[in-house]
């Protein structure tokens, strides 16, 4: 339970009006922090765990907001609110899975203020790390969540590498399933990452959740038209019917013809430090009938090799059943 202290520690605030200005400020200063909706950031500031000297608030950068057509797909500015993503007619009619995922993030107030980019790059919810414990992710040399006596019911069942925290972004799985691309800018120019490569696990860099380094800015998310109008399946399982992060979620885009799966793209999240694209499962179900047998096989394959911790073995059948339902095509 949070304690109200006086106020956040002081920082210098910049409110640029263009991406170039923002990049310029980030390049000129050390210990910077990019502030989008601020809902993740301010917890860190108020708890004095992250203490930037310079905060760059992006609310005035209009080029980062909005949803527009791009080729046969869509391009969504990273500062577009989750509310606008969930309400967008283009997103709902063609890439419904993203609208569903965005609509299930947290509370109305948070969706009104929180942004797509902020949701994607939010830090993990591991409470040892959040509580300021000096774990690997915080630069220390121990993981407090991975021991036999740890509180790790919400942690990873696969992809652990010293750190066992999970990715908490609901929209991440949906964007992996849609084959989205993340556009990242820094003073050197623009780079484009496939959604599944945008997120990095602890085996690559234990202190980051994404490829973004200081000075980088996620500017847009581009969704190709490849999966527009596919059969989508989104399901987020959480402890409460009201708002919460996911214990596990599945996002699937499946193209069928006469009950046979032609191609599929499936991702699960909440089970690993990154969203996990299930390429083996996608290969398995191709050409198979969309029924419960296929779903069972898909679920088994998806969870093969999972290594639960002391308190989270329930996530194995949970993920298995989510994949099963996605593949057999339950009404979402």
């Amino acid at each position: 339970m949070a304690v109200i202290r006086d106020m956040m520690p002081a920082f210098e605030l910049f409110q640029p009006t263009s991406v170039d200005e923002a990049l310029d400020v980030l390049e000129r200063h050390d210990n910077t922090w990019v502030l989008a909706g601020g809902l993740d950031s301010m917890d860190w500031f108020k708890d004095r765990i992250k203490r930037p000297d310079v905060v760059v608030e992006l609310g005035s950068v209009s080029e980062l907001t909005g949803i527009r057509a791009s080729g046969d797909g869509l391009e969504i500015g990273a500062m577009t609110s989750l509310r606008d993503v969930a309400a967008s007619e283009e997103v709902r009619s063609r890439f419904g899975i993203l609208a569903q995922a965005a609509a299930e993030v947290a509370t109305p107030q948070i969706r009104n203020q929180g942004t797509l980019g902020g949701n994607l790059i939010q830090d993990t919810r591991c409470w040892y790390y959040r509580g300021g414990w000096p774990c690997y992710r915080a630069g220390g040399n121990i993981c407090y969540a991975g021991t036999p006596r740890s509180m790790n019911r919400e942690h990873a069942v696969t992809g652990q590498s010293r750190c066992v925290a999970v990715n908490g972004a609901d929209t991440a799985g949906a964007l992996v399933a849609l084959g989205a691309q993340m556009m990242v800018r820094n003073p050197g120019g623009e780079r484009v990452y496939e959604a599944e490569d945008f997120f990095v696990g602890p085996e690559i860099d234990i202190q980051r959740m994404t490829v973004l380094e200081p000075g980088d800015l996620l500017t847009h998310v581009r969704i190709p038209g490849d999966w527009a109008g596919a059969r989508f399946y989104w399901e987020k399982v959480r402890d409460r019917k009201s708002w919460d992060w996911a214990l596990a979620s599945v996002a699937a885009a499946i193209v069928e013809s006469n009950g046979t799966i032609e191609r599929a793209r499936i991702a699960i999240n909440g089970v690993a430090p990154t969203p996990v694209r299930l390429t083996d499962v996608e290969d398995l179900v191709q050409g198979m009938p969309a029924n419960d047998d296929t779903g069972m096989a898909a679920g088994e394959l998806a969870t093969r090799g999972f290594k639960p911790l002391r308190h989270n073995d329930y996530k194995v059948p949970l993920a298995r059943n989510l994949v099963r339902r996605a593949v057999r095509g339950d009404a979402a």
Partner: protein
Amino acid sequence: MSDAEITTETLTGHSRRTFIKGVIATGAVVSSSSHLFRARSLSASATVRASMPRMISLDVNGVSRSVDVMPQETLAMTLRYKLGLTGTKLGCDRAECGACTVLIDGVSHYACSMLTNAVRDRSVTTIEGLESADGTLHPVQQAVIDEGGFQCAFCAPGFIMSMVALTNENPEPTREETAVALSGNLCRCGDYNKILNSAMRAAEYARRMV
């Protein structure tokens, strides 16, 4: 001062609330309250809007108000401790409980988790701004009174602001939709059933007014 004198003074109308508000007003005149908030002086920097003006004007409840804010100051802090608008409550200060809910350009936000500087060009509505100039209550406020919606009512201002946002966006909400719309507000008394009743009645009152 003897006990008797204290009692007399209490009886002459100095409630705890007016006393606190008086202190807040004094603080605002003295300004900055730097001993409380430990502002760091802004170093002059050559880049964009480097040294931000400390005095900014905020559009709160339809009135433009000048206020001295620090870069790291949240809107809830400014409203409560600089402008004396203590109807906006601080419960968790972590974007979880919703007691600080205000409307920014008509849309609900957690005032505890946004920087005051980020709302400079936008219009802020707090619970104090709901009643009309002649004192007529907003239909949502009237509905809450008629339904006896809250027990301790610490969470009420936040809930009421969420209800106002709901009635603006969805004139005919179902009970289910109402529950979703109010899911960003918590009531520790557990009065949710009465709160939902209030919200449903509020939507009805609002429809009647149109």
